[in-house]
């Protein structure tokens, strides 16, 4: 419906307009289209963009340095000086939340990108070759699917340890991304199975193209919709996983600012004295996950409502 006039020249369409007297709606930019058709998703997108801006420009946005220890203002209640109060080291909670957005978004995007991309490639390969290859891949995916995300992630973290490159723990990204692979592979495989039967794939085969060319040039671009949908949905999952792991002391470690880490350790010792240490980081996690879920859901409705996550 959305692109019913695609394929006609603009001139033809305008000519028809003149005679019938029907005003052809102007084709708007896809982003604008999305905002008009999916207002909730657009709201989610706005929150995501705001968070991204805060994360990137954290040194300019944050009122304090997130690592500066100031025992004079330890456990200070929210005030005009410290909007969201301070923690047990006198560090500004708002600044730590803003810097925490960096950690959450960086790990969330990287893990989701890694998991979805590998999953999509595996799904397409599985669907394209079919037969024994498909059977073996599906069995391996079944094995990976029988672990809860957090259990598999914790196990991988335990095995790999830490490996920090450019301020991001690569092993943590792998641990969170790995459990996503089978889920993405399953959804992408079913989309790719339908595509495999289309005439242009036969045409490509007849033309003598190699398997890898058909997979990467003809099939992969056509599973972009499910890929993008899964990618957004899993950013939310990855942010939750990072928070959980950091909370358990298995993810990001002090003094790096991370929302999950802010909730662990000292926060639990000061329930009554400093509830702001618990309340605000949790709101940050919830808001981020909420925004990505909202955006992901709308993106699915907009691109391909039939996909089940």
């Amino acid at each position: 419906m959305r692109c019913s006039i695609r394929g006609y020249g603009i001139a033809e369409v305008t000519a028809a307009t003149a005679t019938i007297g029907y005003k052809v709606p102007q084709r708007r930019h896809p982003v604008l289209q999305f905002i008009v058709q999916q207002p909730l998703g657009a709201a989610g997108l706005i929150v995501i963009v705001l968070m991204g801006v805060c994360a990137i420009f954290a040194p300019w946005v944050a009122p304090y340095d997130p690592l500066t220890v100031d025992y004079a203002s330890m456990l200070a209640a929210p005030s005009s000086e410290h909007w969201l109060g301070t923690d047990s080291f006198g560090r500004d909670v708002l600044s730590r939340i803003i810097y925490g957005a960096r950690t959450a978004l960086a790990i969330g995007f990287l893990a989701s990108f890694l998991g979805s991309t590998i999953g999509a490639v595996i799904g397409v390969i599985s669907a394209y070759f079919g037969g024994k290859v498909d059977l073996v891949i599906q069995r391996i995916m079944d094995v990976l699917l029988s672990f809860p995300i957090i259990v598999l992630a914790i196990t991988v973290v335990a095995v790999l340890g830490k490996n920090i490159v450019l301020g991001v723990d690569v092993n943590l990204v792998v641990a969170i991304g790995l459990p996503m692979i089978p889920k993405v592979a399953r959804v992408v495989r079913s989309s790719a199975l339908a595509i495999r039967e289309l005439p242009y794939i036969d045409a490509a085969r007849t033309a003598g193209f190699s398997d890898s060319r058909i997979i990467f040039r003809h099939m992969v671009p056509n599973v972009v919709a499910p890929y993008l949908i899964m990618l957004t949905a899993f950013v939310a999952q990855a942010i939750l996983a990072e928070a959980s792991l950091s909370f358990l002391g298995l993810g990001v470690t002090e003094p790096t600012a991370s929302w999950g880490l802010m909730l662990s350790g000292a926060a639990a010792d000061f329930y009554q004295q400093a509830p702001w240490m618990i309340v605000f980081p949790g709101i940050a996690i919830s808001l981020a996950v909420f925004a990505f879920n909202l955006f992901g859901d709308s993106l699915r409705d907009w691109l391909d409502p039939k996909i089940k996550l």
Partner: protein
Amino acid sequence: MLRYILQRLLLMIPTLVGVAILVFFLLRLAPGDPVQMMMDGANVSREVIDAERARLGLDRPIYVQFLTWFGALLKGDFGVSIWTGRPVLYEIGIRLELSLQVAIMATILAVLIAIPLGTLSAIYKDTWIDHLVRVFSIAGLAVPSFWLGMIIILTLLTYFSWIPPLTFTPFFEDPWKNLSQLIWPAIAVGYRYSAVAMRMMRSSVLEVLQEDYVRTARAKGVHERLVVARHAMRNALLPVVTVVGLEFAFLIGGLVVTEQVFNLNGIGKLFVQAVARGDYTMIQGLVLLVAVFFVLINFAIDMLYALLDPRIRYR
């Protein structure tokens, strides 16, 4: 039907063997040495460490280690915890009751919330009731259960100056004391769970309401309440059963984090401790147990489906 059951049972075997292989070799890739970790700080000589390694069988080639472990596994022997020296199954057994009870309570809570609210949301689609229920359920997916647990404790502490008891009392000893401890973690993990089921119930009822037999029932003049209760809800429950079943297995995963918040000595806490201590045999046992549990539940759901919908058996 018998053929179908057998076929499904046979299909479980490669998955479970795969899980065992994956778990075993994944952990053996770890750079740390458990014996060294255990003796950390205690100034022991190389010989003592080697003797301990030999005692645990860690000095043999890896494939021999695997075959020994796997062989024992088939006899139901999960090995001995490297850290405590007691059998893995014993350690799990004494903690399972607590975790299982929280999981079951969370499930009951989730179903009790999800089915009526999901149905209401579908019947009153696009009204304020629907919007309210949907916001409630989307929020449920966003709020981390461990944080919800902390907020629950904070609320109890601030407004009632009370915290749940810290020691576990079995349900049949003192049901009141037992519930006053475990209802809170059940709410914390149950909220997310109910949100998932609620969304499924809503979309499922919406789909069923489009069916011909619902239109027929309405045309016959059946009371709308009966149409919803007998025709729509009953048929809409099938996909919800699947989601509830699948999520139950994953609930154990959610408990890993939430048990820390409430300081519960369940299998989740055991898992985190085992990881922190590099207790290989314990991690293997726990991960395997969760996976077996998941595969069995999957099997049960398939059977239930086949029982409720004869078309599936003949596929």
